[in-house]
């Protein structure tokens, strides 16, 4: 059982090593990375099936019993996130076949990419707050390396802001861990769920929970802590920014969901009200920021922020339906956002730029790309019958059910503004003529575009599939939401049956 849990983390690590040693041979290294990602997806799916059949499963690494050992837990939410991470990883690995050049490969792009995937997967599977911190750092260090790879001045500039703000968040996180340990004497999340609820000084617990909220808030780029994201996400190569956009902030959201449903639930009047305001402001500032941008990836970066607001909204409302919405939104958003960044990469390759006012004519030159852009773009804006429609629909319905009219209205208006941004990209990059009167042509230097298209088509098909057949995905999200709201199965899986714990 415990091997099932560790494999999705181990496989990327084991892939990273040969990929690094083969770094001098870009093609070989990329293929190793691709093969590793494919095997990783299989392992993730096996884990998912187990969780689906048997409920929450937990394992102790190196055989020390919880709450003392290194615990890995997979409930439905973790399993879904692991699978979606593996899917994104596979898509980006396919895309990287076409984009990553010899130089980046020699610097260790493929190895760092796999370590990043391992870090993300580890963060989803760990059952211990301190290990969550360690996985965050694994992820962060790999992302630093990927962000500055190539070393253009613009990248360094973006990286300074990214590194600075993420390090601050790291320190807040570790201080929170220290204080929580001092108060409760445990860091195992299942054990903490009990210890925090029983703690005599609930005010202190709320205070500590706010430290965690700020730390995870920086990671998930919520208002007003998001400034590192639009400063850096448009600078690295497209394969890198796609995996960042898809996965990194979502780990922060996952950590928020996990800690504010499992651990800090004693005073939702304070914590979840703050989260609700944060969600609203995040949605609005993100979408307004996007409206002012003219760079393809900057528009998309601000939209990440705005979409994070929706996910936090579901957590803030804390009703079963709202959490279903959050989980569904996470899945939908990761696929769509990674896909849009990959499309931005193809468009940059075809037109030679990413400033929307200086490119154009893509509709005539690449009708396939135009069609592929419309799928994630409309899904992002929430057009039926694509995946984004269902995600938004559930969240708006959940807010209406709790009579949260204001936030429901905000969510709808923000959706409208999202359409504005997507239309702007469409009009500027695809519809209008190229300002320099040239027709974008695929470059003739033999650069293969097919891996890039393959990755984009793969993700677009998933978006359509979720949109057309939402029922099974909704059921999974409902299971996840039920497990989040009633963590007794989670706690029992980690600590053993209550009878054993009493002995």
């Amino acid at each position, binding site marked *: 059982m415990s091997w099932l849990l560790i494999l999705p983390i181990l496989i990327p690590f084991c892939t990273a090593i040969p990929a690094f040693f083969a770094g001098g041979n870009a093609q070989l290294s990329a293929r190793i990375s691709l093969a590793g990602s494919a095997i990783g997806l299989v392992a993730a799916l096996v884990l998912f099936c187990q969780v689906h059949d048997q409920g929450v499963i937990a394992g102790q690494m190196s055989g020390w019993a919880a709450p003392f050992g290194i615990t890995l837990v997979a409930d439905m939410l973790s399993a879904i996130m692991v699978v979606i991470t593996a899917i994104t990883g596979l898509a980006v690995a396919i895309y990287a076949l076409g984009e990553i050049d010899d130089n980046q490969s020699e610097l260790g792009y493929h190895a760092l990419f796999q370590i990043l995937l391992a870090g993300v997967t580890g963060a989803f599977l760990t059952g211990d707050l*301190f290990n969550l*911190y*360690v996985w965050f*750092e694994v992820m*962060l*260090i790999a992302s*630093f390396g990927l962000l*500055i790879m190539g*070393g253009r*001045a*613009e*990248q*360094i*500039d*973006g*990286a*300074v*802001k990214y*590194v*600075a703000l993420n*390090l*601050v968040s*790291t*320190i807040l996180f*570790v*201080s929170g*861990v*220290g*204080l929580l*340990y*001092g*108060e409760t004497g445990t860091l195992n999340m299942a054990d903490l769920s009990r210890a925090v609820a029983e703690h005599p000084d609930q005010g202190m617990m709320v205070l500590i929970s706010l430290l965690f909220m700020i730390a995870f808030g920086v990671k998930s780029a919520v208002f007003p802590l998001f400034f590192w994201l*639009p*400063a*850096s996400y*448009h*600078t690295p190569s497209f394969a890198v920014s796609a995996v960042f956009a898809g996965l990194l902030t979502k780990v922060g959201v996952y950590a928020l969901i996990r800690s504010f449903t499992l651990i800090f639930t004693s005073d939702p009047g304070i914590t979840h009200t703050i989260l609700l305001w944060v969600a609203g402001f995040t949605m609005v500032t993100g979408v307004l920021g996007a409206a002012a*941008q*003219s*760079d393809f990836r900057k528009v998309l970066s601000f939209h990440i922020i705005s979409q994070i607001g929706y996910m936090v909204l579901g957590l803030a409302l804390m009703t079963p339906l709202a959490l279903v919405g959050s989980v569904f939104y996470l899945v939908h958003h990761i696929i769509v956002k990674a896909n849009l960044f990959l499309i931005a990469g193809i468009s940059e390759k075809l037109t030679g730029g990413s*400033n929307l006012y200086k490119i154009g004519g893509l509709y005539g030159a690449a009708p396939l790309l135009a069609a592929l852009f419309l799928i994630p773009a409309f899904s992002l804006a929430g057009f039926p019958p694509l995946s984004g429609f269902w995600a938004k629909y559930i969240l708006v319905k959940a807010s209406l059910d709790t009579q949260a009219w204001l936030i429901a209205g905000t969510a709808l208006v923000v959706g409208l503004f999202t359409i504005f941004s997507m239309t702007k990209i469409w009009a500027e990059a695809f519809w209008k003529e190229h300002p320099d009167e040239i027709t974008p042509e695929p470059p003739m230097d033999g650069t293969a575009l097919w891996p890039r298209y393959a990755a984009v088509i793969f993700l677009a098909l998933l978006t359509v599939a979720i949109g057309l057949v939402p029922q099974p995905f909704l059921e999974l999200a409902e299971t996840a939401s039920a497990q989040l709201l009633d963590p007794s199965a989670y706690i029992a899986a980690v600590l053993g049956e209550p009878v054993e714990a009493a002995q």
Partner: protein
Amino acid sequence: MEPLLAILVGAMVAAAIYLMLDRNLLRFLFGLILISNAANMTIFAAGRLTPERPPLVPVGAKAPLTDVANALPQALVLTAIVIGFGLFAFALVLALRAYDNLGTLDTSEMRLAEPRSENDT
């Protein structure tokens, strides 16, 4: 001992925040290392300060014979120091690269990735 350590942590955080508010990237980094040490001190103090022995089990015994210091916070601090050390070393290299490439350490002058006006690009 704990109140004394708490005051020390407070002073370190105050000094660190003062440094981190500076526009100079290098001063920011110094603030960062100070505040990360304050965080480590917090974890250390969270394990309670005791004048006991190191948490080592003598040969032949199965458990420590006397009361020992809490080993877990020390392990956590060690991990946090290691990670902090790695991140800080990276940040220093980055600052040096930034100075080379951008010609400044003043963070408000670093506007390459986010130019003041979009037409500058």
